[in-house]
């Protein structure tokens, strides 16, 4: 994708900054002038399918990102911090399960939950509870559970297993953060302070900031997901399906790589019928909690040193809990 990468990635010496509107205009003009060579370069089937998947992930995720960004701006501007102090139990250990269960009310996929969790942390909610909410919301909301029931008509226990496993992982990660988490792993909030601004200005400022910020990282994640979808051959999966351990790990990794919206992943899991139900449950539990685009967005919102620790821990715990849940329920 070297062709369409915008020029500002270049290193510019201090003091010679072009101003960015000018740069944007130049980049757009150059790209419009070069559009036929760009189209030709993208005409190869592999590039075409890459671009289609990339655009599809963006068009599908942006509405949910915008929903999350509006909610997060509303939380940041209109909800006083004292509300959360009253709504959540004072003891962090109790706030974690309450926040996990509250994830059921955010009807959307994982792109919406990252900015909302960021706003909760800035509003003084204990990070452990906000992180539990971040993990549970995309997996246990009614839309996602209904989709799961529709996708697995013969196995209604799949819905229960998904709900239980996702809640367990979200709570466990929250408690783990209480015991082991360190505040300095979290990036200090980069949000401009809203002091001296009208509510409207603060609201739209927050919307603009979150779309630009989380959106940029969403693009990184979408590019990674499109690359792997266009390049990695599916025959590897067939080889893994026979072995019970390998099949769980293969679908866990596939969930991370594909970065499918949590409202659609149940249908994909249903079609992976050569795999065991436990392996498919792992796919459904891991996907909404950690995938490439979520990792990029978490790194952008909470900082890289946080994401590098949080993501592997979530992955390991999600796999473990899914296997145990699958063993008990399925």
């Amino acid at each position, binding site marked *: 994708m070297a062709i369409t990468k915008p020029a500002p990635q270049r290193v510019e010496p201090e003091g010679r900054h072009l101003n960015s509107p000018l740069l944007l205009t130049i980049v757009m003009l150059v790209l419009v002038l070069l559009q036929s060579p760009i189209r030709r370069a993208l005409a190869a089937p592999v590039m075409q399918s890459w671009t289609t998947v990339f655009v599809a992930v963006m068009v599908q995720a942006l509405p949910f990102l915008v929903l999350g960004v509006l909610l997060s701006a509303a939380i940041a501007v209109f909800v006083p911090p004292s509300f959360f102090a009253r709504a959540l139990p004072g003891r962090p250990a109790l706030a974690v399960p309450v926040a996990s269960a509250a994830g059921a009310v955010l009807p959307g996929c994982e792109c919406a939950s990252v900015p909302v969790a960021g706003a909760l942390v800035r509003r003084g909610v204990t990070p452990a509870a906000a992180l539990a909410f971040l993990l549970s919301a995309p997996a246990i909301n009614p839309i996602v559970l209904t989709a799961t029931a529709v996708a697995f008509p013969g196995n209604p226990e799949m819905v229960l297993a998904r709900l239980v496993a996702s809640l367990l992982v979200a709570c466990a990660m929250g408690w783990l953060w209480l015991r082991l988490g360190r505040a300095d792993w979290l990036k200090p909030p980069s949000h401009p302070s809203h002091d001296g601004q009208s509510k409207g200005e603060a609201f*739209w400022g927050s919307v603009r900031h979150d779309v630009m910020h989380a959106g940029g990282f969403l693009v990184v994640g979408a590019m990674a997901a499109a690359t792997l979808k266009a390049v990695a051959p599916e025959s590897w999966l067939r080889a893994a399906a026979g072995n019970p351990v390998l099949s769980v790990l293969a679908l866990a990794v596939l969930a991370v790589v594909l970065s499918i919206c949590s409202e659609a992943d149940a249908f994909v899991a249903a079609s992976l019928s050569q795999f065991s139900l436990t392996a498919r449950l792992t796919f459904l539990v891991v996907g909404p909690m950690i995938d490439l685009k979520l990792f990029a967005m978490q790194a*952008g919102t909470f900082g890289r040193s946080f994401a590098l620790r949080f993501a592997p821990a979530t992955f390991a715990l999600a796999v473990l809990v899914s296997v145990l849940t699958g063993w008990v329920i399925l």
Partner: protein
Amino acid sequence: MGDPVNRQAQSAVLFLLGASLLHAATTDLYLRYVKQGLRPLVLVSGAVLIAAAVATVWYERKRARSREKTHVHPEPRVAWLLVLPLLALILVAPPALGSYSATRTGTALQEPLAYPALPAADPLPLNLVDYAGRAVYDHGRTLTGRQVQLTGFLALDHDGTPYLVRMALNCCAADAQPVKVALTGEVPPVLQPDTWLRVTGTYTARRAEDPVNGGPIPFIEVTEAKPVPEPTDPYDESWNS
């Protein structure tokens, strides 16, 4: 370090991104990438992005007029990447997934819940996924003796087997999966992958195994194959209803 993105550039990017979403959702372009049901959400988010762009410019001008000291927090350079999807949408507008993805992914045919009686038309236009489900899991009981008409695009396997394919979609093209029906009988002599065809034919008990995932692929005995334009919604969304 490169340039951080300042407010004017940000509002330009937000505006263009919102406008390209509105453009995709008001034409049929969005159907190449996402399901029909997402249209209202895409429209609303496009409008919100444009509103955010307008609000940014408005507050910026108000601030400039009151000559307040501005403390600008420029966004990081990663925000520049938002230019990519809008360029891809406006300049390239990539086509819906076709034979390349179809031959690399195994057939996603699933057992239907029921086999409702078919109308009495002859030839009978039938959804490709519906035909495949009836042919494989009901052993063609509702199909025998009927002329059926299937629409899909052509894909050629490594050994040259022609398939008529429809990509089934649940949310967006990233989760689209092919359902394949192999062609036999009066297959056209020249086969160009990704051509949309309307095939008229009859049920045959012949089956093949998908080389990618071992899934079942039914055949259709072709009597006539006609090129047709790509349908407005290139994907099969019957799983959504």
